[in-house]
């Protein structure tokens, strides 16, 4: 099954001057083109719609554009042509101020984690709450809660550069969850985790999904069978996104 056929949504001008689109979709891409130089095309005329509350696993071989897709959604990269709408907002048209406000509503686990190495786990995880100007008491309580759920409560004051790969990955996941975002984008969030921690992270993502959060992850390995029931797969195949039903097969086929 290919991605849904899309008609351009109605575009309206909001009070703030940015173009917002009223749509049930959390993510919409219209005629998306992206290439890194000649002959290095990543996406070609991609139309895709991801509805609110969906759990999507983005798969594809290495270098197929999974991270690029997430970067397009966070506004770190811009498409060569086409539109990328996230929560009704055309990310590419946002100014610095509005892009920051937009990013406050999403949680991202980056492939290279993007933690501040000389900061403690607590400080790294609390960063989105500082950006949101949350009070100290709330920050302490919320960060403590998230760290406990990721078995990191004992590492609260540990400096990130001294943590193991797995602990740093869990710290990055904690940072993506701490401010209860409406959309979680996770680039291989379990890549460096052992089975126990992997199950822990999947469990947290599942809980966030059950609470209504839209989740888009990229992964090489298929998650456990209980997760497969909750998500569907978007596979990057020949510069297009191909949607595969509700259940996620263990061996992706291109």
């Amino acid at each position: 099954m290919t991605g849904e056929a899309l008609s351009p949504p109605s575009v309206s001008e909001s009070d703030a001057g940015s173009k917002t689109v009223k749509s049930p979709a959390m993510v919409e891409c219209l005629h998306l083109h992206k290439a890194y130089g000649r002959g290095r095309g990543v996406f070609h005329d991609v139309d895709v719609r991801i509805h609110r509350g969906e759990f999507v696993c983005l798969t594809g071989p290495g270098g197929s554009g999974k991270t690029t897709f997430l970067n397009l959604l966070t506004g770190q990269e811009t498409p060569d042509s086409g539109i990328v709408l996230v929560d009704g907002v055309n990310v590419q048209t946002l100014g610095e101020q509005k892009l920051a406000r937009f990013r406050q509503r999403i949680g991202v686990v980056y492939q290279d984690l993007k933690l501040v190495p000389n900061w403690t786990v607590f400080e790294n995880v609390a960063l989105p709450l500082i950006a949101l100007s949350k009070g100290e008491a709330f920050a302490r309580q919320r960060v403590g809660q998230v760290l406990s759920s990721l078995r990191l409560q004992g590492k609260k004051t540990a400096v990130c550069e001294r943590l193991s790969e797995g602990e740093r990955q869990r710290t990055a996941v904690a940072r993506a969850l701490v401010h209860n975002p409406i959309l979680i984008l996770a680039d291989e969030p379990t890549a460096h985790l052992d089975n126990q921690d992997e199950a822990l992270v999947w469990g947290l993502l599942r809980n966030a999904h059950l609470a209504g959060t839209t989740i888009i992850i990229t992964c090489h390995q298929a998650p456990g069978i209980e997760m497969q029931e909750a998500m569907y797969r978007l596979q990057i195949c020949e510069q297009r996104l191909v949607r595969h039903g509700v259940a996620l097969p263990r061996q992706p086929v291109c």
Partner: protein
Amino acid sequence: MTQIRYITKHLRESLHTSALALLMSLLALSFSFLLLGICGLALARQEALIPDWLAPNTVTAYLDVRSREPDQDRMVKDIANWPEVELVQLVTSKQAQEQLKAVLGRWKGVLEGLDEEFLPPSLQIRLKPEAVKAEAAGEVAVRLRQMPLVVEILYGKEHWEWLQSLAGQWTNIWMVLGAILILVSILIISNAVRLVFAYRKTEVHVYRLVGATPFVVKLPYVVEGILLGSVAGSLAAGVLVLLGAHVHRVLPAFWGAALGWTSWESAALVAGLVGCGAACGWLGTWMGLSKSP
């Protein structure tokens, strides 16, 4: 962790990681503000910096060559009673010629054959020390001019006016110098902040990715720049206040009195330099971060 705690942490880390750069900037800034303070003081007290002893204290009135001795003596008595006058001395034509011969020395022969009274008699009027001011000499000159036997008056008016015009030029010089120093201070702060910003680019990048607005990202750097400027201003003001308190012990009496500033001036100096430091800090940070990616 609130914004304030984040800013405090930021400052602590900057002091730790960029200590040398910040110290060098602080020293350079303090020196710049010290010079700026001196400029300000010079601007405020430039009239006091022109010593009164440069003002004319002697007025010479040349009399008509035909004037007679009794008239001259009467004039001396009259003038001696004027309140500004300390001493009046009559120099007759003969005395003037003798003085000229003494000045010419072995060239005095050039005066041979000239009339004994070719030089006019004159009155040398010395003013009292408390009245030594340009106005006093001017007033004496005006009164002398009204006397019938007086033909010419000399009291160094041109010299004094030249000094005064120089003082007027100083205003511009101090102001230009002050503007240059302010610009230099802004550039120093701008570079210091840019250096710290570049050192922390990973943190800034991550902070932006999690949704920090430009204002929130830049706030700690603005605080840092303002603090840097204020501390440098305080240091410079402290040095100047100390200098003001002790300058009269080091310098000769006149300069000591002219440069030793009052407590009111000291307070204005501290407020001015700290305020100027804070303003330069804000401007410098704004300038430094406007070019940062």
